[in-house]
């Protein structure tokens, strides 16, 4: 069944987009991530312009993280204090991100920046996660204990605050900075940023695993809602029809993914996720290096009359 996407301005097969939403939803449910870093590239791959893909995926991630956040809220696995401090940074970062997005688009360098950010971020995070997963797997083979967690320099920063539910005593400075960072890259790349945020919160901020995913989902939810709104107001690029199909596919797929994820061990899961992220990054890198089929592109700046 063909459907015309009003903003992306091209006809797509509804079932193809629905299946893509479900597949990404499955993966995101399995690993407990938003899945934006898979969804945006897939949309670009089927011919939707990177700008529309990034803007529309934001609302799709908002939907999936809202259903996730609701589940974690019921289990009291969200730290409201930590979430609000993160959000102070997140909202600022998102606004900065959308502004940068608009500037880059006017310069004609948006597609390049999206591709470059994907290469840098995904290959770095992917290889870190992959090697960490490998090391963890070897440790459990040898039966060795994981290295003891020690306090790092971050815990020496001023403006400390007590986060009751997470049972940590932490400076607000690194928390706000992390929020800004995630908001910024999320708005430019069309990702929720969960796959970067969760490791940062665990390894750098020492947030306990009981509250880390739920709290990161709140940040994702609010930054992505805000990004949707800003992209709609400034760039008019959010395709609501596309977003709705993705959401329906995504939230359904996520439920089955979550069940599948419970059957796989943590280390293996991290190894798989690392590999997946790495391969998306490499794909973008290859695309940048090989000669494009057509060196010319046209952009319409609006029809008069």
């Amino acid at each position, binding site marked *: 069944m063909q459907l015309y996407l009003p903003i992306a301005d091209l006809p797509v097969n509804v079932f193809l987009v629905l299946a893509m939403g479900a597949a990404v939803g499955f993966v995101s449910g399995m690993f407990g991530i938003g899945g934006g870093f898979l969804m945006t590239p897939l949309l670009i791959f089927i011919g939707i312009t990177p700008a529309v893909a990034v803007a529309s995926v934001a609302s799709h991630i908002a*939907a999936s993280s809202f259903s*996730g956040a*609701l589940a974690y809220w019921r289990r009291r696995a969200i730290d409201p204090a930590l979430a609000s401090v993160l959000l102070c940074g997140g909202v600022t970062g998102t606004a900065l991100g959308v502004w940068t997005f608009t500037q880059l688009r006017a310069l*004609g360098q948006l597609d390049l920046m999206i591709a470059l950010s994907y290469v840098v971020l995904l290959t770095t995070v992917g290889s870190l996660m992959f090697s960490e997963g490998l090391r963890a797997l070897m440790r459990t083979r040898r039966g060795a204990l994981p290295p003891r967690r020690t306090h790092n320099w971050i815990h020496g920063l001023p403006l400390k605050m007590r986060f009751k539910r997470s049972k940590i005593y932490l400076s607000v400075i690194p928390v706000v900075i992390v929020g800004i960072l995630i908001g910024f890259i999320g708005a430019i790349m069309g990702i929720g940023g969960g796959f970067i945020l969760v490791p940062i919160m665990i390894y750098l901020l020492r947030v306990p695993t009981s509250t880390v995913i739920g709290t990161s989902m709140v940040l994702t939810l609010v930054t992505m809602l805000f990004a949707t709104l800003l992209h709609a107001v*400034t760039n008019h690029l959010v395709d609501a029809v596309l977003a709705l199909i993705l959401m329906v596919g995504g939230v359904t797929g996520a439920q089955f993914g979550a069940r599948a994820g419970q059957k796989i061990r943590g280390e293996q899961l991290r190894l798989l996720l690392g590999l997946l992220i790495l391969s998306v990054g490499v794909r973008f890198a290859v695309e940048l290096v090989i000669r494009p089929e057509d*060196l010319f592109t046209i*952009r*319409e700046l609006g*029809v*008069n009359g």
Partner: protein
Amino acid sequence: MMRAALAVLLVLLLGSAARAERLIVSVSNHRVTVTPNYSGEELVLFGSVEKDASTPADRKTYDLVVTVMGPRAEMVTRRKERTFGIWINTDYRQFLEVPSYLALFANRPFDVITSPEIARRQQIGLNNVLLTQRVSGDYADVVPNDVFRSAFIRLRTQRGLYREDPSAVTFLTPTLFRTGIPLPAEVPIGTYEVEIKLFADGAFIGKTETAFEIVKVGFEQFVATTARQNGLIYGLVTAAMALMTGWMASIVFRKD
């Protein structure tokens, strides 16, 4: 005085003699509505060449060139170049007020119908249509083999938005003709001007104009218009939709 009046009359008569033929045309549909499941269609333009008393008796055959121009828009063509090992948009040209849809149809190849000089003056053929570029503060069209100009035409042609077909016009009788105007699925909305130019023995002898309109209807068009005109409301509704979907999912799949 009398002589001057006669001269004026003569000029007028000669003038109308030069335009002896009248063109009468019509399109099959003056208002095309594009619905969500629209996948392109073809309009038909038909018409006839009306001779009158002043038409030279030996003039038997005519040639026709039909130009269809969609709403005008500003476009930018960019070129990628290899920089530091990766392909980056470096150079660009701005095309001003160029037709978003452009089709040229004729009954014979353009170079057989008329001389290159008249073809250029009458903008016959994609190479001769005026496509104004902004060239460092100046406005001008460039030579037809300019890389940006030819890339622009090539890309538009690939999308089915620019086309030329020198065999699309068929004469049913020596004076009665028809041609199809293909409109692809992603046709821009707006007013389309149709110009029909008549040639005989290589000379341009007259033209007429008509127009049709393409409007999009349905939910998709409503969404597109709202997104452009009421960005804030559109964004809020999309955000609310995301929340609703997420909430519904958490109810439907709740594990109790």
